[in-house]
């Protein structure tokens, strides 16, 4: 480790104005991008949907109620949802969900995993 410490040069002067500028501007823009997206979905999209519904047909109204209503949920329900979501995510990560049927069928039969050996 001694070798490492002596060898590496910490050259702070390498951070020139260009680098700093990139860092400051870059981070701001990342914020700006997600801020804009936030503002869009917080204010503009709901407005559009509302306007559309105002003009639109009655069969759109369930949509609108979904969009605007904040549902009160008890802790238990919340927990249940989280659980379900957790399971879903696990599934998503293991990424097996979409080939469930297939897998169940294609499970290769192998005599070595057979029950007659009494090992499983």
């Amino acid at each position, binding site marked *: 480790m001694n070798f490492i410490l002596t060898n590496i040069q910490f050259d702070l002067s*390498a951070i020139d104005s260009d680098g700093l500028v990139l860092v400051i501007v870059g981070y701001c823009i990342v914020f700006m991008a997600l801020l804009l997206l936030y503002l869009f979905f917080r204010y503009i999209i709901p407005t559009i949907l509302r306007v559309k519904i105002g003009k639109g047909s009655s069969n759109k109204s369930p949509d609108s109620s979904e969009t605007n209503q904040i549902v009160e949920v008890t802790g238990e329900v919340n927990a249940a949802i989280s659980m379900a979501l957790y399971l879903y995510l696990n599934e998503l990560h293991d990424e097996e969900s*979409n080939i469930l049927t297939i897998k169940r069928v294609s499970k290769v039969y192998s005599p070595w995993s057979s029950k007659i050996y009494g090992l499983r």
Partner: protein
Amino acid sequence: MKKLLTIVSIIVVLSCISFAFSSKDTETTGSAQKERIINSTQPGLSDPSSGTLRGLKQFFEYSGFNNVTTGHLVMLLVGLFFIFLAIKFDYEPLLLIPIGTGILIGNIPFLQAEGVNLQLGIYQEGSVMNYLYFGVLKGIYPPLIFLGIGAMTDFSSLISNPRLMLLGAAAQVGIFITFLGALVLGFAPPEAGAIGIIGGADGPTAIFLSSKLANGINILADGTTVRNLIGPIAIAAYSYMALVPVIQPPIMKLLTTRKERLIRMKPPRAVSRTEKIMFPITGLLLTAFISPGSLPLLGMLFFGNLLKESGVTKRLAETARTSLIDIVTIVLGLTVGASTQADVFLTSESMLIFVLGALSFMIATAGGLIFARVMNLFLNKENKINPLIGAAGVSAVPDSARVVQNIGLKEDPSNHLLMHAMAPNVSGVIGSAVAAGILLSFLL
């Protein structure tokens, strides 16, 4: 404890060893390659018995036993270790198994001498690995992976509580601080940019950006060529993504109070189908107008999501999130692993990249946590955010969201944070892709 040991061992082993062998190996390899027996030029050796001996010698010249160096053995151990981690601890197995096997394949020693091209190594023209590596080198695979990810991601949590997107932006501070760190350690600006993106905690984004900025091809302003850092950057990114459950918890506990960790958040509202369809379209247009450089990644991500949410292209979405992403994952993982050929990979730069990568993840986590606490200062009581979910802003979907869930449950077994953590988690993907786009336009 076992986990801490794991992460420490990775860093130490990789770092130290990479130094130890970076200079010595070239010699060994060189000497082993000098004498290549060319049959036809050797006169008077026509009797079979001496011929067989000669043949055996030639066989031995070509075999791995003759060409092996300490570097090869180190990397083979690293490959085996990756496979072990994947199978034993289930850390990102879909990535670590292909990468680990790739490391094995890429570090089988073979005869590399001037004028001899056996078309085996990933850096040798005409080898299969070289052809498959093309998609890494040109940044083609990562967007295809993003297409599949888009087709399997549900952005509902983000749409229902768009405020949480900002946490995904905050965590990208890791990228920019690491960029500065890499500059300080002597990397050229484009290389530093590619190294910084490790803090984005997205393998495909890291590979994409490094294939554009640190690909061993581009010429810098001072006439030198950038180094090819795709391998170390990708390996660092995936290693730490796999180790998120080890890296994050201590930082999360350090930077939040117990009281904060107990905060319960309002359940998210329901999201309409129209909103779900609007999201990828709006997201694509907004982010691409702000940072056109993020288009290859985010264009594909939102395209995949539109295939999923439009409801009229289910079969395309299905294929994108199964066969297509699987095929690309197999090939990407394998070639990224194989690109760690010892003589290219075991350098002091790789070690520095590993150290910077670890820092990057920690800073990103801290950034998300701190910003969540800052946000809370401006929010009224019933809208307070549990700052733990800020840690999910680093992305590493969905591992860091799970970590949040677990830490939250430890404090209060009835406080499920997962669905809230998913919002910063997926917006972290968007955030780091935007950052990649900016780095690309400024540094290319």
